[in-house]
């Protein structure tokens, strides 16, 4: 009956409501399953929100659902990458941006620590060499604390 009244043109209370686009809930379910996997097997999951058919406002609503957690971080490489923990521990929003601050893609990462925050093995392998180089440099030309 409600639907009928809507087709007759009356502005039904629910007609234009944003949650009617209905993309938030399935993603929340997906996150829940990913959390279960993380806890059970340690398997990490990344969800590319760019691939979601979001309607206007859907993303904002999803973020509101997820809330804001304690950790915020940014990685400065090829432009900024902004990391925000959500109110659900282990669920992260990772916003990859280019040098012009345009979003490249937006991931939800379900992991203890987002991948991009961790030092990469290749970089780690060069860590000591880098430190040595800096110490050598430092001895001849000591860095000034700014």
């Amino acid at each position, binding site marked *: 009956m409600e*639907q*009928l009244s*809507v*087709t*007759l043109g009356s502005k039904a209370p629910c007609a234009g409501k944003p949650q009617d686009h209905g993309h938030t809930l399935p993603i929340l379910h997906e996150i829940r399953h990913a959390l279960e996997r993380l806890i059970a097997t340690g398997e990490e999951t990344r969800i590319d929100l760019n691939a979601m058919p979001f309607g206007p406002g859907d993303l904002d609503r999803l973020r509101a659902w997820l809330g804001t957690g304690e950790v915020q971080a940014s990685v400065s490489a090829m432009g900024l990458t902004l990391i925000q923990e959500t109110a659900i521990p282990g669920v992260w929003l990772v916003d990859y941006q280019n040098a012009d601050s345009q979003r490249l893609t937006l991931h939800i990462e379900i992991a203890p620590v987002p991948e991009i925050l961790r030092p990469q093995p290749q970089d780690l392998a060069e860590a000591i060499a880098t430190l040595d180089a800096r110490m050598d440099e430092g001895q001849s030309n000591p860095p000034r604390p700014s």
Partner: protein
Amino acid sequence: MSGSMEFLLWTKGPMFDIALAIFAIGLFARLAEIFLLGRKPNYAEPRAGEWLPGLRTVFTRTIADPGTFQRASFNVVVGWVWHIGFLIALLLFVPHAELIKGLFGIAWPALPNPVVDLVTAITLIALVATLVHRLTHPVKQRISTIEDYLVWTVVFLVVLTGYLAYHRLVNPYPVALGMHILMAEILLIILPFTKLTHIFTTFIARWYNGAAFGRKGVQS
């Protein structure tokens, strides 16, 4: 012509024109065939006029009399269900209403899609039931011809392809929609040459029936 889109456009374009032309030519030929035959003058003193009883029968014959309903309830109910279902899907589904508006400029309100969807599902079930009935009931077995099965198949496929297209169960979609349109076109093409003509002539038949009975003082 290998692509799905080309197929869809063919069904929406040239094939639709062809189907419509054959349908219109066939149907009007059929109507001309009927009306030009005429009736002989009737000199018997009538008890009542013909027009009103004829018109009444056009409508009243839609409902079975209680005795027949009792004796052939399955036949009647299933027939009813799928006819009504088919009509609802045909006339009150938004895309169909738009098609009619596009062709004839007449518009009417349509039903919400979920309602039409449910109706279509019921129609499909009822159609299957009619087939089972035709295959198992002795009378229907005896009087059924190839044409009956052909017509059933076409009608069923029209509804089925529509259902599949709506639910996007066939991919790519242009193929699904094209199949539906093509089936509808086949239906249009065979309509004037098969028992499907009853969609139009049943009203004429009922009128003649009502008129003949009415003239003798019986409301048929």
